[in-house]
């Protein structure tokens, strides 16, 4: 029902496994669904009806505290595009602040749709989405742009502005937030060196290779030091070596506190980095 996997080698995951468990129960406590007890609370060294009741009461009190540790929460999210079958059905999971999560699944599983919903590009047909404490279902225009200021998104198709140079593309992400010109300059130069594109600063995106464009998109997402990084198959166009270096880059960013949710179908990458995994198939969480 809920998918919570704490990776074996997750030394940089900031939460203790038991706390993770608590977090995973939180949405069900909120729902007043006792199934949480039956399915998820088996690990508690308690049993019996009375214990169940007092557990739920306690959990309800604990919920506000736990909730502060969550960055992304989805509860029973459904999405169906007009004229096609459901792209997402009954998606419920939480991601804690500072986590690094792979979103996996075959093509058409709903990874992109899920990321878009978190980012506010698509609206869910049903369900609740809470990002950094704000419920997205009641969000307005202004709320969307405020959300996007703290979330970096690496699009599958990059979405770079063809008329602007690499430098201007990356700088725009800071300019729209109103960062001072001096700060923009130093931050953009730093991030371009970081992704190894300093020598391409004055090139237009279309004159770069696919891998380079990919890294411009990544630089643009990271330059504002986002609280959350959403990446839609950011290694799709790269050879394995570059793919590794990108994920390493994400790992470093994650170590500095950014919550990362990365969609990919690259099994070797997932195994190599061994982080928490949310697996989708045909719009459902399968593990």
């Amino acid at each position, binding site marked *: 029902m809920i998918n919570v996997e704490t990776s074996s080698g997750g030394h940089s995951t900031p939460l203790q496994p038991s706390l993770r468990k608590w977090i995973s129960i939180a949405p069900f406590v909120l729902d007043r669904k006792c199934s949480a007890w039956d399915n998820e609370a088996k690990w508690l060294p308690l049993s019996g009806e009375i214990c169940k009741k007092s557990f739920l009461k306690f959990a309800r009190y604990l919920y506000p505290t736990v909730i502060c540790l969550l960055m992304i929460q989805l509860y029973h999210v459904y999405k169906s595009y007009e004229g096609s079958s459901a792209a997402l059905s009954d998606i419920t999971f939480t991601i804690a602040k500072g986590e690094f999560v792979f979103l996996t699944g075959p093509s058409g599983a709903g990874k992109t749709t899920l990321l878009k919903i978190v*980012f*506010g590009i698509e609206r869910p047909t049903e369900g609740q989405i809470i990002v950094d404490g704000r419920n997205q279902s009641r969000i307005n225009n202004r709320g969307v742009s405020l959300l996007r200021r703290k979330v970096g998104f690496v699009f599958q198709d990059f979405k770079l*502005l063809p008329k602007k140079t690499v430098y201007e593309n990356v700088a725009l992400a800071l300019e*729209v937030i109103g*960062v001072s010109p001096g700060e923009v300059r130093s931050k953009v130069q730093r991030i371009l060196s970081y992704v190894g594109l300093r020598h391409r600063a004055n090139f237009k995106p279309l004159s770069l290779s696919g891998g380079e464009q990919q890294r411009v998109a990544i630089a643009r997402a990271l330059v504002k030091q986002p609280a959350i990084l959403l990446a839609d198959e950011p290694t799709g166009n790269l050879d394995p070596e570059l793919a590794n270096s990108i994920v390493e880059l994400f790992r470093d960013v994650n170590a500095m506190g950014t919550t990362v949710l990365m969609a990919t179908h690259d099994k070797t990458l997932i195994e190599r980095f061994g982080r928490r995994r949310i697996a989708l198939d045909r719009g459902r969480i399968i593990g």
Partner: protein
Amino acid sequence: MGRSYSLLYILLESVRNIRDNGLTTIVTIVTIGFSLAIFTLFLLVSINISTVIQKWGEQIQVVVYLKDGIPRNEVGRLRKIISNVDGVDKVDYISKESALNILKRELKGYKGVLDAMVDNPLPLSFEVKINESYRSTDKIRYIVSKLEKLEWVDDMQYGREWVERFAGLLKFVELFTLVVGVFLTVAVVFIVSNTVKLAVYARKSEIEITRLIGASNLYIKSPFFVEGVFEGLVGGFMAAGLILLGVKIMSMNVPAMFLHLVAMPVRPLVLLCGLVVAGISFGVVGSMVSLGRFLKV
């Protein structure tokens, strides 16, 4: 911190956009310029034509000739009665002497003919000016029929054909101006708004991407606003230039008697201001309306 720097970025962005979309900007400016010029020239000519027609209409009058030997006090009484007839604006009394003077003035070259006259053969008369709303054949005929019955009235003259033609012309010009005016307005609004809309649509993906990286609606709209103002301003100046040029060319080639048709009823500065305001409204309103579609959640 945001606000103050945002303004700087918005201005920079506007300048960059005008530069990067040079051709679109020029097309928009030229469209606004020519559309406004055509529309204003039409307005100018139709205003002048209606002024001229108004003046012609003022010349519509009935001349009432009085019988010889009418007593002095009867003249005053008759004048009062005529003034009270429906549709009569003003009654001027023309004495025998003034009638002769008018005739002398009009027949300057044939002075000898008049000098030969011993007696003044001209009758006394009234010039009856007709109210604007009575300047049609039927209504004038109605007035004439009333005047005919009056004592001492000998004959009347009112240029029936001329009145008929005038009424027809008036109706035609009014209708023509209305129809062409409506067509022209629709065409101008359609062409300008379409040009602006296409310019906005050409930047659809740019707008969407900018929104995706967290720009507020205000941040996205503002450069379009600045560009709209710029294009409207230049377009307005261009229209003013075109009109002045057009009027100049016409006044050099048109016979003097038609010159008042292209006379400018307002001062050039007023014209310029009006055109610039119209141009800016076109530029700004057009792009804001087209933008609205991309800025919904």
